[in-house]
């Protein structure tokens, strides 16, 4: 009986298992394999070490570590901005009427239906020195600003592209929250701000974590936005990987991808561990 059942489960799982093996495990294996081998596929740590040690001939700074930290900085800034914008938006959505919620949801989703490249090009025309933004600023009688080709422009692009990935997980957690908890907090003496800080915020941490993960990871490895909105002036880690790949330096490209993946996994594990522990301690202290 249970044997038949487990066989059935195995059969049903079959197609997915094959899919997962082909498209997840095999590529991961090859990334790791390429990262730890040289051009004739002998084991080597050179590619990994190169990432940490390669220095610029002119300035002596470590090229790839610098690129990595720049990517990290822009990704963290974008994630924080997404969180600061996305969290209130998600909260407002859950408090709105049913119709308004649907409309807001569609407005958030629509840009996601458009091609990523087109969206980025759209921002180029907005942010150019003679673009829509400066046209607007000058029409107000103010000095035009130079933003295209700066880190700010890249951050604007990333925030725009990844904001929905912050809003949706937070919204889904908040929408499931029992509104009676808010009433209970009010009943026990909380003003609006205290309700937010003591009840809504702690209960939406899982959504925040998901949102941060879903924004941080793609924005740290992005390569296209920086090329277009940054005018190619500063390399991000994604650009570096792409560059090495295009110039047929697969092993070093794989090594960078591998290192990035390990660092991200470690970071996510750490965040999960810290927030999990913080909640536990917060709950246990008297």
């Amino acid at each position, binding site marked *: 009986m249970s044997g038949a059942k487990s066989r059935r489960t195995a059969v049903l799982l079959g197609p997915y298992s094959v899919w997962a093996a082909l498209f997840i495990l095999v590529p991961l294996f090859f990334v790791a394999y390429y990262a730890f081998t040289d051009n004739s596929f002998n084991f080597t740590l050179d590619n990994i070490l190169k990432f940490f040690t390669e220095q610029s001939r002119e300035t002596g700074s470590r090229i790839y570590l610098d690129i990595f930290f720049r990517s990290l900085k822009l990704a963290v800034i974008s994630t924080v901005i997404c969180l600061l914008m996305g969290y209130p938006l998600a909260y407002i959505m859950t408090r709105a009427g049913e119709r308004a919620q649907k409309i807001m949801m569609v407005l958030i989703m629509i840009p996601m239906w458009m091609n990523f490249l087109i969206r980025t090009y759209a921002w180029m025309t907005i942010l150019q020195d003679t673009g829509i933004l400066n046209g607007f600023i000058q029409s107000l009688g103010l000095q035009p600003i130079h933003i295209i080709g700066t880190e700010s422009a890249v951050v604007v692009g990333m925030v725009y592209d990844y904001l929905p990935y912050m809003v949706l997980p937070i919204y889904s957690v908040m929408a499931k929250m029992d509104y*009676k*908890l808010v*009433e*209970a907090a*009010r009943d*026990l003496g909380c003003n609006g701000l205290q309700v937010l800080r*003591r009840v809504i915020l*702690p209960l939406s941490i899982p959504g925040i974590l998901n949102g941060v993960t879903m924004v941080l990871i793609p924005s740290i490895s992005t390569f296209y936005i920086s090329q277009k909105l940054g005018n190619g002036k500063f390399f991000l880690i994604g650009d570096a990987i792409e560059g090495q790949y295009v110039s047929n330096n697969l092993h070093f490209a794989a090594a960078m991808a591998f290192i990035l993946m390990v660092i991200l996994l470690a970071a996510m594990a750490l965040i999960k561990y810290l927030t999990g522990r913080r909640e536990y301690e917060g*709950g246990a202290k*008297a």
Partner: protein
Amino acid sequence: MSKELIRLKDVSMKFDGDTILDNINLYFNDKEFLTLLGPSGCGKTTTLRIVGGFLVPTSGDVLFDGVRINDVPPNKRQVNTVFQKYALFPHLNVFDNIAFGLRIQKVAKPEITKRVQEMLEVVSLKGFDHRSVTSLSGGQQQRVAIARALVNNPKVLLLDEPLGALDMRLRKDMQQELKRIQREMEITFIYVTHDQEEALAMSDTVVVMDGGRIQQIGTPKDIYNEPKNAFVADFIGESNIVDGIMRSDGVVEIFNRKFRCLDSGFAPDEAVDVVIRPEDVDIVPESEGQLKGTVTQVTFKGMQYDIIVDFYGFKWLIQTTDFCPEGSKIGIKIDPDGFHVMKKSHYSGMFGDYSSYSEEYDEISDAESEAEE
């Protein structure tokens, strides 16, 4: 016991053109256990939420100690609520849930600890401080919810169907507990329920509501023994309600026969509703009966038999310890205090006939639907 604490004056509530509360006038005394009782959608929860500050009435006033508090938000009222499904904070443990209100008031730490411990003792949950609330049983969660509200020393505790989600046995235990806590703490309890047994067992005062109106206010005994109309008679306990004519003080006529009763104060020959409780009917041999009928259905209930008896086409519920087989002809006798005479109301003729009797009578469970009110 008699000092007035809260008064609802001409309070009406409308949602989208629907009248939920229709001109409610009601006062709550200090230290009393008052129950708002009624079926789903009668407005009892809305009334409670108005007192709690979660709703502002469309018209009328809410007075606390004589001061109008219509627009005072819940966090500024000396009132705390025990919510229907507890609404405990899942991210906090038992201690922190109970301490929540005190921390908002910035009470000193040692005092918080002391008061929470006292409360844990009151609700019999000593030693549960560090347990996660999600690991507790329904009854334990209920106790935490009560402690969380009571620790703030409210003048009034509002309870919204607090026992609705518990099983029968636990309900009975918690009824006793709540009554004990109310006496110990010496505060006002305003309790919402659709369960008439619960209301009768616990309350000093019962307010029966239906259709957004108050039908009757009184002690449990008054409500049961002297229902004001057919709705109250039917909702509180079981009732046979028949058309009658008040021939004179102390004489009521049903089925064209005159009976002695204790009621008076009606106009001569006034048409009335007459309530006869199923337990007030004595079964006698057919020849000795004041009324004669045929048993059409018998249900064994443990303590008694519920039998349905057909009198001249009108079916009565009678509770008896004597076994009468289906189809047998019986006579009945009713003492003068077994009749209760009521004025006619718009509820006349809607209740009190057991023609469509089923064994599941009056087992209303509308806790779910009421929650959305």
